[in-house]
């Protein structure tokens, strides 16, 4: 009996990410002395560690742009070293690993604020973790600026004073998708009427599904099925078979990287090529395309950033080049979003001229950044009462010939949209 109890206890532990092996996070150095510290909590170990690394690199690059004198880069705080309104104080990013666990994310946020004395927080990629981490920051009265969590509920269902989101929410993205489908049906003789939704079952996927259904109904599209799936699973054949048997005109998919890979391979095995409209996440991850190769071609994804969409902005191209030089990988949507969240936070700290949390929050509330002050294809950054950036926009990309190409808005497109997508054996 004792054996069974012990085994069950350990198995329970295996299922909870909190007990999974933790990474040693790079700790902060001594505070004060002209250094402003911000905390960054991301998934640095576990299944999404690769994405977490890239998002953190985005934040670090933003800090570098502030700290170094880059007079030729046309971005806020690039010229001169440090934050001018704080006597040139440099900024420092103290990172922590939340291991995809909401509780751990909240605990690490508290540790960074109380022990490392960070003046503001950023993170956490996973919407479910951003939810708990930002609530903890709220309780401690410290601003939390998020870049890459898109769950609408983060700003819509909560009344937090210290939470801000620079990136678009999935409501914006859902509207972007249906704008695209409307245009596709009208201008390109597309035949998309009924849609299915395939989503992972935590905060991000569930909210994306709910908002897609809501917007679909508003726009007169029929949602024929909503299929949730778990994370960290060995097999998704039942879910994929369901999608196949329903055979909708388009399938909205919100999945993180491992399941995105698994679904693509399973669809191939079932000889079924759905027209996937992806809510980023796994489909924004370079690792997905490395793992599935040519099968990933023709994936359509919403994005808050794509190099193609900002080619006319020298600063954006320069930042993408700096990213490649520093970290070896291409900048992707996730790193661009967290870069922007961090840079916005630094801007607010500078404008506040103070490291007092209330002053930073007031500066964030009053912030008005123009489109050309960002590296994003947005109209700028201005927060509404809920803390959502009301000027964030989405674009639609399709993965063609080894890279995401801008396919919508049609007038800015760099490639022609290809739907219905060809079967897997012809990719």
């Amino acid at each position, binding site marked *: 009996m*004792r*054996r069974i109890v*012990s*085994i069950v206890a*350990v*198995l329970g*532990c*295996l*299922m909870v990410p909190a007990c*999974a*092996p933790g*990474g040693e996070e790079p700790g902060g150095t001594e505070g004060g002395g002209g250094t402003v510290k911000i905390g960054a909590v991301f998934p640095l*170990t*576990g*299944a*999404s*560690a*690769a994405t977490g*690394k890239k998002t953190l690199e985005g934040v670090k690059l933003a800090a570098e742009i502030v700290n170094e004198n880059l007079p030729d880069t046309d971005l806020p705080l690039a010229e001169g070293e440090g934050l001018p309104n704080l006597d040139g104080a440099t900024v420092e990013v103290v990172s922590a690993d939340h291991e995809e666990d909401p509780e751990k994310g909240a605990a690490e946020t508290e540790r960074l604020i109380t022990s490392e004395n960070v003046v503001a927080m950023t993170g956490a990629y996973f919407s479910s973790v951003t939810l708990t981490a930002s609530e903890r920051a709220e309780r401690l009265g410290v601003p939390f600026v998020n870049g890459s969590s898109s769950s609408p509920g983060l700003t819509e269902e909560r009344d937090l004073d210290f939470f801000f989101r620079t990136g678009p929410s999935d409501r914006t993205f859902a509207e972007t998708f249906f704008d695209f489908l409307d245009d596709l049906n009208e201008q390109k003789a597309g035949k998309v009427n009924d849609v299915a939704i395939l989503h992972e*079952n935590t905060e991000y996927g569930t909210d994306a599904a709910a908002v897609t259904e809501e917007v679909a109904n508003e726009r007169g599209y029929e949602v024929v099925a909503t*299929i*949730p*799936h*778990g994370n*960290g*699973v*060995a*097999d998704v*054949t*039942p*879910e994929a*078979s*369901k999608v196949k*048997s329903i055979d909708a005109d388009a399938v909205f998919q919100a999945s993180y*990287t*491992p399941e995105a*890979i*698994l679904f693509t*391979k399973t669809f*191939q*095995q*079932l*000889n079924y090529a759905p027209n996937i409209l992806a809510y980023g996440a796994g489909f924004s991850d370079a*690792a*997905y395309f*490395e*793992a*599935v*190769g*040519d099968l990933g071609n023709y994936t359509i994804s919403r994005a808050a950033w794509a190099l193609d969409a900002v080619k006319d902005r020298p600063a954006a191209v320069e930042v993408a080049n700096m990213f490649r030089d520093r970290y070896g990988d291409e900048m992707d949507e996730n790193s661009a979003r967290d870069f922007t969240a961090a840079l916005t936070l630094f801007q607010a700290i500078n404008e506040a001229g103070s490291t007092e949390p209330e002053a930073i929050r007031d500066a964030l509330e009053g912030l008005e950044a123009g489109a050309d002050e960002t590296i994003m294809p947005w109209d700028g950054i201005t927060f509404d009462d809920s803390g959502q950036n009301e000027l964030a926009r989405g674009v639609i990309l399709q993965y063609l010939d080894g890279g995401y190409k801008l396919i919508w808005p049609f007038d800015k497109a760099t490639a022609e949209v290809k739907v219905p997508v060809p079967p897997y*054996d012809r990719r």
Partner: protein
Amino acid sequence: MEVFAQTIVSGLLLGAVLGLIAVGLTLIFGVVDIVNFAHGEFLMVGMYIAFFAWRLWGVDPLFSIPLAALGVGILGVISYLTFVRHAMRGTLLSQIFVTFGLLIFLRGLAQALFSSNFRGVQGSILGDVSLSVGGVSVPGPQLAAAVGSLIATSAIGWFVWRTRMGKALMATSQDREAAAMLGINPHRMFALAWFIGGIATGVAAALIVSYQPVHPNSGIAYGLPAFMIVALGGFGSIGGALAAAFLVGLIENIAGFYLPTEYKELWIFVLFLIVVIARPQGLLGRR
């Protein structure tokens, strides 16, 4: 009907592979009387071996089966000789901690050495093969994995039940002291059990790597079901593990398709609870 046939086929294909993985685990438990919590990580190591054989030397995973099997088998023996052997003299809790520690160590080591990136084998021989029988698609890689797993499971069964050394292994499993008195060295048998358990896992790893992404956590998805299958089938029972694995594969696919997918694992655990209450020794386990 076509759809139902598809769920059955998918369930059997999954079950065969889960069976081989669980057989490796149950063998170690049956003989050595220790639960290897790092079993999923053994699988992950095997997947990396097969992946790098493909990546570095272009060896198709089908041909790197011996390499992965041997690699994980040796890993099992090393684990036994270096940690487990000593832990067996300690308390139950220390036995659990030593294999659980091995799990954390292997996962951390994989992330340190290979990074947390997802990797996948592309263009394997069977990668694009997919049979279609009356509307039911049978993917080549999964079929190969299922057939390969059944062959490997049968081979292990043959070894254990038909060969002298296998009989010695089973004797040790049944009564360590009595076997020792008959001149069977238990430590050799323990090392052998870890070796065979590792081989089973390594074979499974090379078989699934053509359709499963490889990353430091890729053992979790198979490790956890394997534990449940072992408990379901009866700790130490090879036939029980195989039967339970097919049951799990079928339930997951049938319930996953016809009932809300988010609860597909629920039914497996419901079955598990029923078995634990009604037949605590497992389906084919001995009391």
